[in-house]
Every structure is written in C-alpha cells, then in structure tokens.
C-alpha cells in the first residue's frame, strides 16, 4: 500500500518540479526585453568588462612608471605552453654587488590559453588580468608584447 502511495507521490512531485522549471523559462520567454547578454558591437563605447574577465595578461605600472616585476622568471616556468619569455639584465648596485633585474618581459598573446597560472605563481604580484579583448590583428608578430614599459623600473619596496 505504501509503495502505491509513493508511486503517485512520485508522479505528483515530478510534475510539480517540472512545472516550477517551466514557470521560470516561461516567464523569461514572455519578457523578451530582459536581456542579460551584451549587445557587443553596438555598445562598444559603453562596454565595461567585469573584474574577473580574463582579457590578457598585463603588468600594472604606477604613476612613476614603476612595476613590481623582479625578473625572477617564476612565471616563465609556470606557463604550460611557453607564452612568457623573460630577458634579464644585470645592474651594478651602489654597494658594488651585481643585481638581476627585468630587461624585457615578453608575452606571446597568440600562444596564451588564459589559464592564469603565471599570475598565481608570481611572488610579487607583478602580473594581473587586463580587460582588453579586441586582440584581432593582421600580423601575428603584433601579438608578441613586451609587458614592462620602456624606461620603467621596479618599485623600491619589493623584497626578493
């Protein structure tokens, strides 16, 4: 007797839950003005991407053209597909020691899969996600970017 009751209760619950789902989609259907997607080429001027959006890897610079990259090369090691290339330079410190710094941080956007491992691996938070996403170019070599700006230097308080 109990199993028969369960059988019909099952049908009742199924119908109820299916109708709940259909109510949601039905309401969406009858309110076509509610659009959650971005109407991209039209709203290009006003489009604001979200903080979590992974457009490209960038190296933020402050007002004095200073970045946080020490040139340690951990991001280069962390990258699974060889997107990042670190070219180091050596400078003479005032105390006579030699010190490694970053010369060029080369980022091959064309090879990047946007996994974000370089950003997670960076010990000094030098890398971040940029919001730019219109990367289409006519020449592949334009996708090879140098992330540190010319003439930039490291922020003084970074501890290696």
């Amino acid at each position, binding site marked *: 007797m109990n199993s028969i009751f369960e059988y019909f209760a099952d*049908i009742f619950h199924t119908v109820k839950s*299916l109708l709940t*789902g*259909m109510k*949601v*989609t*039905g309401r*969406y*259907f009858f309110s*076509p003005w*509610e*659009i*959650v*997607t971005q*109407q991209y080429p039209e709203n290009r001027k006003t489009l604001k991407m979200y903080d979590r959006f992974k457009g490209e890897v960038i190296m933020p610079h402050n007002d004095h053209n200073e970045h946080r990259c020490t040139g340690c090369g951990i991001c280069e090691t962390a990258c699974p597909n060889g997107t990042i290339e670190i070219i180091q330079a050596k400078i003479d410190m005032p105390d006579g020691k030699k010190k490694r710094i970053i010369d060029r941080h080369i980022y091959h956007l064309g090879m990047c899969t946007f996994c974000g491992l370089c950003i997670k691996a960076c010990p000094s938070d030098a890398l971040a996600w940029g919001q730019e996403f219109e990367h289409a170019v006519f020449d592949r070599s334009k996708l090879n970017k140098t992330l540190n700006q010319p003439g930039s230097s490291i922020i003084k308080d970074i501890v290696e």
Partner: protein
Amino acid sequence: MNFSIYDFTSFNQWIDKFLNDNLPAFWAVAVEMVIIGVAILLFYALVGLFLVYAERKVCAFMQNRVGPNRVGPYGFFQTIADFIKLMLKELIYIKNADQLLFNLAPFIVIIASFMAIAAIPFAKGLHAIDFDIGVLYVIAVSSLGVVGILLAGWSSNNKYSLIGAMRSGAQIVSYELSVGLSLITIIILAGTMQFSEIVEGQRDGWFIFKGHIPAFIAFIIFLISSTAETNRGPFDLAEAESELTAGFHTEYSGIKFAFFFLAEYMNMFIVASIAATVFLGGWMPFHVGSWAGFNHVMDFIPPFVWYIGKTFFVIWVMMWFKWTFPRLRIDQLLTLEWKYLLPINLVNILIMAFIVLMGWHF
C-alpha cells in the same frame, strides 16, 4: 467558379476537372501527384527554414538572450544563410563507411517524414490523401524514420554513431507504444481513424475538452512521448552533444547533414500537427457549445490559420520542454516510459472507454 479560403474542396475539384478535360485519366493523376509533391516540397522547405529560426529565437528568449539578429530584420534570413552555407559545404568521403547505406540513410529519414505529411489535413479540402485509417498510417510511416537513423549509425562505422543510433532505436521502440496508445484513447472517443472525420467530430468542441480528464492526460502523454519519438530534448540521447559529439549524424556533412537536420524539425512539425488535429481540433475553429454568436465570429478566421496557430502552439510547447529540462539518462528514459507512461496510459484508455460507454462525454 467560387474559390474561398474557408473551403478548398471546390478549388481542388476545379483543378481535377480541368486536368481530366484536357488530359487522359492516367496523365491527369500523374500531373496531380506532381503538383501535390511540389507543393508539399515547397511547404516542407519553408516550414523547415522557419522552424530552425523559430527554435533559435525561442531558445534565446527563454535564456534571456536576443538570438539571431544580424542577417535581415530580427535575423529573419539567418536560416537561409545557414542553408546556403550547408549547400556549399564539402560532402566528406568516409573511408571505411558502408557507402550505399551511408548515402541512403538521410533519404530514408526524410522520406519517412515526407510520407507522413501527406495524410495531414491542413484545411477543409486541403488534404493530399484522406485515408480511412489515417492515424494508423501516420504512426506507421513516421516510425520508419528510425530505420534511417539505425542505418546511419551502423554504416558510419563510428562508435559514437552506433551508440547514438542504438539509443534512438531503444527510445523509439519504447515511446512509439505511448504515442499509439494515447492516440487510441482519442480514437475511442472519436469512433474513427480518418483524419477528416476526426476533425469533423470536433465541430462542437475539441476532443481535449470533450473527453474530460482522460483526454487531457492522453494529450500530455502524447506530448511527452512524441517529443521523445522525434529525438528532441530532453530526450535527445541519440545525439547527446556532450557525450556522443553528434550521435548518429556525427560523420555526415553538407547537404546530407542538412537532411537529418531538416527531418528532425519536420518530424516535430508532423507530430505537432497530429497533436493539433487529434486533440485540438485541427483546422476546426474554436467553438463553444451553444454560443452561436461567438462560434460565428470564430468561423471568420480561416481554417488554415487555425491549423497553423494550433500546430505552432504545440511546437512552442515542445520547444519550451527542450529549453527547460535537462537531458535524461537512458535508464531514466526507459523507466519513465515503462513504469509510468505505459501503465497510466492503459488505465487511461480503460477510463475513456468507460466514459464513452456511459455517454458521459459532451
């Protein structure tokens, strides 16, 4: 000669008379067949293109999107662009496929749906052939499509295709039963299997209202099982993109793929037509018992508009199912049919027979 959009009988008789006056009897019939074939083919292509567009738009609205909106106003010519693209695509030669069956399969699928459309009454007199066993004919012919699907899966020589085809086979064999039994429920009420008589029997009220609760249950079961029979979501295990790439038509490209694609939408159209004809009165306007004035106003809307309106309503409900529910697993699918739909259906037939016997229906 008076033609009217309310009754195509005189128009048909006029064509028939014209051809018989000018041609020998054999050629008159041959020309009539060609005319009907071309007319149905054109209708088929137009409805197919429109349904693909409608599906994409309905899906978009149900997901709070805009849908196709680039080609033409509101993206109306999107499917025509897609169709041209499909026509221009290369037909890939599959090395280890059974060439004969591989090329034959899309035609079997499309012919099955093409044959079923012949028996459907579009309006008064607009009816290619009016069998006295019309319902049986449509059920028989529309289930031929599974042969094409099985052949496509087998001859592709691909594991995904084969699994998809086998699932489709199991699914259609199971759900064909429910489709048939739910139609039988209404046949008991109507007392005939001829489509024109079924429609005529709904002059004073559609069967879904005349048959009380059993007719309504039969309608719901028909909707569920026919959705499954046309391999549409949430019963689209046969093509299950996420598991089987594209199921039975994985290896097809270009126009052969387009045939499968079109046949899927036309099967949906045919199933919706049957639902509209058998349960919702076909081309018969909405009549309420003794409200003469109301019935008269409803009669002004041409039958073809009624038919198309009801059919597209059913299609819309099926799209609503597809874009709301997640896909069932194969064991859930068979459980639904054999443990729930089939017993309910059998009891439902019994109740309907009892109601008809006691004369409790309207």
